[in-house]
């Protein structure tokens, strides 16, 4: 379990987050919503331990997250970013990076076995020996998720991990993320721009605006009123014939 305990953060002369409190629980998909520049990426940076809070803290179990050594953190937390830099590393070698927190002097058979298992699980086997620079955007993001899973974390952080993808790949990615969240009982925290994706896959929502959470909770917090205030445009939430929620601006 991971908690925000009165968490505040500021860049020089510019407060970004103030007094956030929240609880994230295993097996659930937590979605952070908010406009551009509202501090979603900063929040992920704090959760990943890369940024130090100005006040308050992130608690991981009973520990204060930013005081834990990076090597320990790396075994608990995995991060997927919006873009993956193009490298000539092969998919397998890239996935093996996920074993970095566990490696001694060399990569062992057990480490490779974890990689092979995840490759199979995400149906990435045909790409295994291809350099990352030759993958499509969708394949690249899938590999990034795979690398995060190879890390065998308890907490999975995704910073707009689907924002660069087309519709089909977005759905495929979110399917994978939801499935792994349930199966591995991960605490998954994702920032999203696409409200419909959020409605479709999220379990728990955090509406970030003006340095604080405007609202947080299950689907019931995604009201016309809350969403309209969050994005400063008029938004209506509909229920379609199958009972799924969707939004119209």
């Amino acid at each position, binding site marked *: 379990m991971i908690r925000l305990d009165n968490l505040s953060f500021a860049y020089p002369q510019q407060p970004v987050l103030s007094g956030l409190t929240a609880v994230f629980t295993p097996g659930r998909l937590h979605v952070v919503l908010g406009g551009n520049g509202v501090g979603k990426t900063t929040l992920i940076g704090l959760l990943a331990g890369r940024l130090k809070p100005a006040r308050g803290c992130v608690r991981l179990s009973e520990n204060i997250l930013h005081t834990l050594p990076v090597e320990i953190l790396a075994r608990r937390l995995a991060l997927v970013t919006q873009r993956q830099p193009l*490298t000539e590393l092969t998919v397998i070698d890239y996935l093996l990076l996920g074993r970095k927190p566990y490696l001694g002097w060399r990569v062992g058979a057990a480490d490779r076995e974890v990689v092979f298992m995840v490759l199979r699980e995400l149906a990435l086997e045909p790409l295994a020996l291809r350099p990352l620079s030759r993958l499509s955007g969708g394949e690249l993001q899938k590999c990034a998720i795979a690398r995060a899973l190879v890390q065998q974390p308890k907490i999975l952080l995704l910073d707009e991990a689907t924002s660069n993808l087309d519709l089909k790949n977005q759905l495929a990615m979110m399917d994978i993320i939801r499935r792994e969240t349930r199966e591995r009982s991960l605490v998954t925290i994702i920032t999203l721009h696409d409200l419909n994706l959020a409605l479709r896959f999220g379990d728990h929502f955090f509406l970030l605006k003006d340095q604080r959470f405007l609202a947080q909770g299950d689907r019931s917090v995604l009201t016309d009123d809350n969403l309209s205030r969050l994005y400063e445009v008029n938004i209506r939430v509909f229920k379609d014939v199958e009972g799924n929620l969707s939004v119209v601006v």
Partner: protein
Amino acid sequence: MLAVAYQRYRRSRLRRLWLLLTLLPLLAALILFSGLVGDNPDLFWRQLQINDALPHLIVWQIRMPRLLGALLAGGGLGLAGLVLQVVLKNPLAAPTTLGIAQGAAFGAALAITLAGRAEEDLNTLTGFLVALGGHANLIAGSAFVFSLLTTLVIVFLGRLRRAGPETIILAGVALSSLFLAGTTFLQYFADDTRLAMIVHWTFGDLSRGSWPELIRLALVIVPAALYFFSCRFSYNALAAGDEVAFSLGVNVTRLRLISMLAAALVTAMIVAFFGILGFVGLVAPHMSRRLVGADNSLLLPLSMVMGSLVLLGADLFGSLVLDPVALPAGVVTAFLGTPVFLLLLFGGDRG
């Protein structure tokens, strides 16, 4: 299936590494013994064991130090270039493109100028340093200090948010021309002897190495190589982006700083002993990358071997092409490096 395919892939890459590694002793034997063996190999072998025989002197006092110098300097430059490219995420980074080598050459020139003056007067600081460590150490030390300064400037620029890869290389170009100007300045005021020494420094020459210097060089390069190799997974992680590397447990800032300082130290030692050997540090990593891909656990050793091969080849070529005049290796690498690098940049499909 997958495991087997991966094994096969790894093995094929490893084979390329071993293949190049076996080229080294072949080339080395060629350089050591060429023109000496003659019609009677047995006689040659016997003479090689005798202390005062000519073949013994040629092999052990002239050719061997030169050969080891090429191996060490080439390997060191190959490593330094690769590490700089990896930590700066910049394919154009190398000791010469970042101005680290030019900084070292300026430092050496400065030490040559000052130490010469100070010999008459032991009361000055440089005079004291000369008395303390001897000429060679002063020159090497000064070369290191200036390559370090250059590195620190680049590290600092690299930490500025706006500095992209191009900016850092452009800053390197600016730093190199600054140091070249500084060296020219010193040359203008130097007397004939010192002028010759300084000019000698601006192009690398492998015949300068002697046994004690080689040992000192090895004492720097071997630990640096071990450190670099121990960081190979962290270097791979850097390729996934700084944020992700951090989330994989890599202390990115520290890794970058220590790696760059180590690369600067290696470069400085090489420049201090042999002078500027341009392009080896730039070309060797690229040639290696084409052979084995981007995985640093293969790339680091291969880049080292490749650097040695390139420098040995350049030295051999230099001693043959204008026979009986032996061109210094630094001149050859500067000449050959440019077309090779352009070929790497624009030549064909990536393999």
